[in-house]
């Protein structure tokens, strides 16, 4: 294979050699190469196939705007799709594959799409795959995905780490070319804390590949000394390989640093990428300008590239794009490529300048003025060109320059639109205020001296602070597309949008630029139209008889370039995705063989199977053992809030619909909390431990919300109340001890108290000690309907207390029971829980209307009085049992009157909670039923269309078991 590596020059380390493979074939390159430059040096231009037509494509750019040379980088778990070969730093052992081709890059069956090009015009997705509708899912979609897909992602989990970090500074400079370096240098010399970020491997921007002269030395030498000076200053942070991808509120910038993308695998102690949030008092946008392609026939043949890219490959990477080049330009900058290539010994056949009257130093290269290229000959490589006067010229590479577009993206991320500047034929950034300003060519300054002076000024100095330099001339006469071209001319390479698609979209009614984007796909996908958009806007302007300003741009949004999901996730993956909350009793529960269930972040013990019991058998046994002897259940997840202060009682009166200020010390009371709109919010028992000291409990699910609600009510509504409160959920382990032998069991571990109805009566809340001095709180409350207690101990004693209870209850056949058994017992007793407190029910709906005080103001009081919330026909809580005793009930099933057909109009309500009652030997449930309390005894139809259930049930009282509450007081 011929080498296209130039003999001298370039910022590559020729002493070292790196092996890599592309599509399974081995190559070598040098440190300092990108994958693209190394392939070019090896004579490889064909790097991919296009999206729709599967046309052979080569590299167009030498930077992050690259639309064509997208590859699958690495293999296995580290495989990364759609990675720009122009941004991949070469490393030893690099493996890359081309995309979107089958069976091979050189011979691709999909290329037949080119022959059916009429099918793939603008809006082809909408036009072609419309009918029949049933074909979508099974035929069209998989077909499109296979044929038109980009690269494929790794199937395995990402093995690498990602980090998140913040950076703060006085000035963030984005881009390290002439303007950026000058701005950073000026600000840093004035003592500002400066952060200089650049997406490139090396700082220096265009100075890394342009032949410039600054301060009497080469542009590169000047850049190197500026960077060295910056690096030596303690107030400067240099961030190469860092793409600033977005500008956000508060002058916050998002950036991603590619810490280890340039090695085969990161060291185990380093991240692959770091996601930065940069908070800067001021920022300078010095990201330069992007060269535009010209739209002409065959402008996508591999070997046709941007003029600046061609000289970047030659000057920076010592890689020649060919042996015989042609330059096609509408502005002065294209001439630099001709001169530089000639200096490197590459033959430059001709400069084709579309302007008839240009006068630019061509360095001895012949110039044809006032002519255009109409076609590029060749398929997988350039064979020659044809001009609009039918002249044919042989060549193997074409450099094109359609002018420069300032890279305005970041300046537009917060909604402002760029402005059109006819002099440079490009959009320039909008005025974004003092805290974010553009400098240099990003601001439309096209001369080096202007860029340096602008950088100095934006860095806080004077324009005259900038060093002297040699300027190239710059002038442009817009040429958006070559109308004389007969062959396919591409506007957007990545999406295969040709010049004909834009007027077609306009003719079909999609003439707004945002619609054109979606209809033709111009400016979509990974490059977001960095190269093609301005050409597309100009072509559309002409097709619709508007000016470019009138057409305007599409919306610029983050991210400037694609950001890996891993970078967003940072370290918060796997078990670090969210915390796991274990209760203080989890060791004990594990010892007892608990099966845990995730409830929010909590791991709750759900049931305690013995041998090969399933959940139902286990829960049934746990219920029977508890109701006949004693059971112990972890209830630590309930929210516990300690409320203290002179006004604690008054505060609780405001929060709850019932009254707590009248609660005697040493007693507990069930409370119901409403939302301000009158709907039930939460419930739980609250105990009074002293005059000015209450202990509230909340449901597990609402613990955090209730806390926040209390803080709001106190701070925003009643700031004068003298009350303090704090969550003590995690400080206490709490267990329910339930069953006829609960008292006898507890008696063995409490210190110095004889438990009876005098010392610990029903609804008592008592502070005492257990096991010889462990502080504890004992509440005689019951959710199970049994004679029961809840025992709370400081969290660190919880396992010990539970183990002691297990031992104490052994003679009574004590069992641990989980949330399943707890739930069965509460349904047997008709106690409402999450299924009924579902954000739609009022206190009255739950049968708790009498709790609503009429003697005080409280949250929700007024709105609960509204007509709709007091309507007798509202759905309220009832019990439900199947008509056939052996039928199983399912929650979510709806009720119909007998004889009614299922319809929303006929809906009578639905089942909210079901359980197999071990005590009754059948399924029972709780339900919400319209006017339910008047319908006890009614037979209803139970309908569940999803499960195909049609059965009958009988409405009953919610309390299914022990309606006299005899067991509670036993």
């Amino acid at each position, binding site marked *: 294979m011929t080498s296209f590596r130039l003999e001298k020059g370039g910022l590559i380390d020729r002493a070292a050699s790196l092996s890599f493979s592309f599509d399974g074939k081995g190559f070598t390159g040098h440190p300092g190469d990108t994958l693209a430059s190394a392939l070019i040096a090896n004579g490889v231009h064909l790097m991919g196939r296009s999206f729709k037509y599967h046309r052979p494509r080569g590299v167009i750019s030498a930077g992050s705007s690259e639309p064509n040379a997208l590859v699958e980088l690495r293999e296995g778990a580290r495989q990364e799709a759609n990675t720009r070969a122009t941004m991949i730093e070469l490393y030893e052992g690099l493996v890359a594959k081309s995309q979107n081709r089958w069976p091979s890059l050189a011979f691709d069956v999909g290329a037949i799409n080119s022959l059916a090009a009429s099918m793939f015009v603008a809006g082809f997705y909408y036009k072609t795959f419309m009918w029949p509708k049933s074909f979508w899912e099974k035929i069209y979609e998989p077909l499109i995905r296979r044929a038109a897909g980009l690269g494929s992602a790794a199937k395995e989990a990402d093995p690498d780490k990602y980090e998140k970090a913040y950076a703060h500074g006085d000035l963030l400079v984005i881009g390290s070319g002439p303007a950026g370096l000058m701005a950073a240098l000026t600000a840093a010399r004035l003592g500002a804390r400066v952060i200089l970020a650049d997406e490139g491997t090396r700082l220096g921007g265009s100075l890394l590949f342009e032949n410039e002269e600054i301060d009497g030395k080469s542009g590169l030498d000047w850049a190197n000394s500026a960077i060295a000076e910056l690096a030596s200053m303690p107030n400067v942070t240099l961030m190469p390989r860092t793409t600033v991808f977005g500008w956000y509120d508060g002058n916050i910038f998002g950036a991603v640093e590619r810490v280890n993308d340039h090695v085969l695998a990161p060291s185990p102690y380093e991240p692959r990428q770091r996601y930065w949030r940069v908070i800067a008092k001021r920022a300078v946008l010095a990201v330069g300008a992007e060269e535009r392609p010209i739209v002409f026939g065959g402008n996508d043949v591999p070997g046709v590239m941007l003029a600046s890219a061609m000289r970047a490959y030659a000057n920076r990477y010592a890689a020649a794009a060919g042996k015989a080049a042609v330059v096609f330009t509408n502005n002065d900058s294209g001439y630099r490529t001709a001169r530089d290539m000639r200096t490197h010994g590459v033959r430059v056949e001709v400069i084709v300048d579309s302007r008839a009257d240009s006068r630019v130093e061509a360095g001895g290269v012949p110039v044809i003025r006032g002519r255009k290229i109409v076609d590029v000959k060749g398929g997988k490589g350039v064979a020659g060109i044809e001009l609009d006067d039918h002249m044919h010229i042989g060549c193997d590479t074409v450099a094109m320059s359609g002018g420069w577009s300032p890279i305005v993206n970041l300046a537009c991320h917060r909604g402002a639109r760029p402005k059109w500047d006819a002099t440079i034929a490009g959009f320039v950034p909008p005025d974004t205020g003092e805290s974010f300003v553009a400098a240099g060519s990003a601001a439309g300054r096209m001369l080096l001296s202007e860029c340096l002076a602008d950088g100095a000024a934006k860095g806080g100095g004077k324009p005259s602070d900038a060093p002297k330099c040699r300027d190239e001339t710059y002038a442009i006469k817009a040429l958006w597309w070559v109308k004389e071209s007969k062959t396919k001319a591409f506007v957007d390479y990545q999406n295969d949008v040709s010049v004909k698609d834009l007027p077609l979209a306009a003719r079909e009614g999609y003439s707004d630029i945002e619609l054109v984007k979606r209809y033709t796909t111009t400016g979509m996908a990974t490059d977001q139209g960095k190269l093609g958009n301005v050409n597309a806007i100009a072509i559309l302007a002409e097709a619709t008889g508007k000016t470019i300003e009138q057409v305007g741009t599409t919306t610029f949004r983050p991210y400037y370039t694609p950001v890996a999901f891993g970078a967003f996730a940072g370290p918060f993956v796997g078990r670090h995705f969210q915390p796991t909350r274990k209760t203080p009793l989890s060791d004990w529960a594990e010892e007892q063989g608990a099966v845990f269930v995730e409830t929010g972040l909590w791991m709750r013990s759900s049931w305690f199977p013995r041998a090969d019991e399933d959940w139902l058998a286990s829960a049934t046994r746990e219920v029977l053992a508890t109701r006949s002897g004693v059971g112990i259940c972890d209830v630590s997840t309930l929210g516990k809030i300690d409320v203290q202060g002179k006004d604690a009682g008054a505060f609780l009166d405001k929060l709850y619909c019932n009254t707590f200020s009248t609660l005697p010390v040493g007693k507990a009371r069930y409370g119901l909390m409403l939302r301000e*709109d009158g709907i039930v919010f939460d419930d739980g028992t609250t105990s009074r431990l002293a005059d000015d000291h209450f202990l509230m409990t909340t449901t597990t699910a609402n613990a955090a919300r209730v806390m*926040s609600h209390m803080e709001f009510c106190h701070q925003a509504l009643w700031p004068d109340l003298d009350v303090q409160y704090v969550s003590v959920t995690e400080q206490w382990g709490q267990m329910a001890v339930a069953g006829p032998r609960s008292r006898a069991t507890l008696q063995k571990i409490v210190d110095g108290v004889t438990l009876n109805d005098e010392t610990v009566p029903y609804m008592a809340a008592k502070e005492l000690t257990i096991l010889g001095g462990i502080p504890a709180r004992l509440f005689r409350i019951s959710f199970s309907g049994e004679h029961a207690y809840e025992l709370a101990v400081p969290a660190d004693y919880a396992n010990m207390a539970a183990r002691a209870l297990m031992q104490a209850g052994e003679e009574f056949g004590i069992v641990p029971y989980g949330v399943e058994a707890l739930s069965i017992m509460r349904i047997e007793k008709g106690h409402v829980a999450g299924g009924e407190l579902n954000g739609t029910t009022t206190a009255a709906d739950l049968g708790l209307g009498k709790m609503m005080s009429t003697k005080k103001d409280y949250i929700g009081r*007024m709105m609960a009085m509204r007509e709709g919330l007091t309507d007798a026909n509202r759905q309220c809580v009832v019990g439900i049992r199947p008509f056939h005793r052996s039928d199983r009930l399912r929650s979510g099933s709806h009720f119909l009157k007998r004889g009614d057909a299922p319809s929303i109009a006929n809906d009578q309500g639905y089942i909210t909670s079901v359980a197999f009652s071990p005590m009754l030997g059948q399924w029972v449930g709780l339900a919400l039923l319209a006017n339910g309390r008047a319908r006890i005894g009614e037979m209803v139809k139970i309908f569940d269309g999803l499960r195909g259930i049609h059965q009958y049930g009988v409405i009953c009282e919610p309390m299914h078991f022990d309606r006299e509450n005899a067991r509670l007081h036993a």
Partner: protein
Amino acid sequence: MLIKCPHCGARPVEEYTFLGDARPQRPTSNDPSTMEQWFDYVYLRDNPKGRFDEYVQHSGGCRAWLVVSRNTATHEIHGTVTARDWTKSRQGAKA
């Protein structure tokens, strides 16, 4: 976005939880004739373009409820006070 908490200083927006419009004031009467006022307080909200006062809790910080004055069009933060001070000053203004 950064919000300046009166207690903790400028902190990122992720530490805060938004509730909504801080301007409606909770009526003090439970008389049925005040139902309209209650309805306004619970349900009616303006959606202004420009300066807007919102209840925000510094839930990932000191947990204080704040009133943040923000421009809904530009996201500029004009100022932050604690809900306690906001309410007390409004109660004082009324009295």
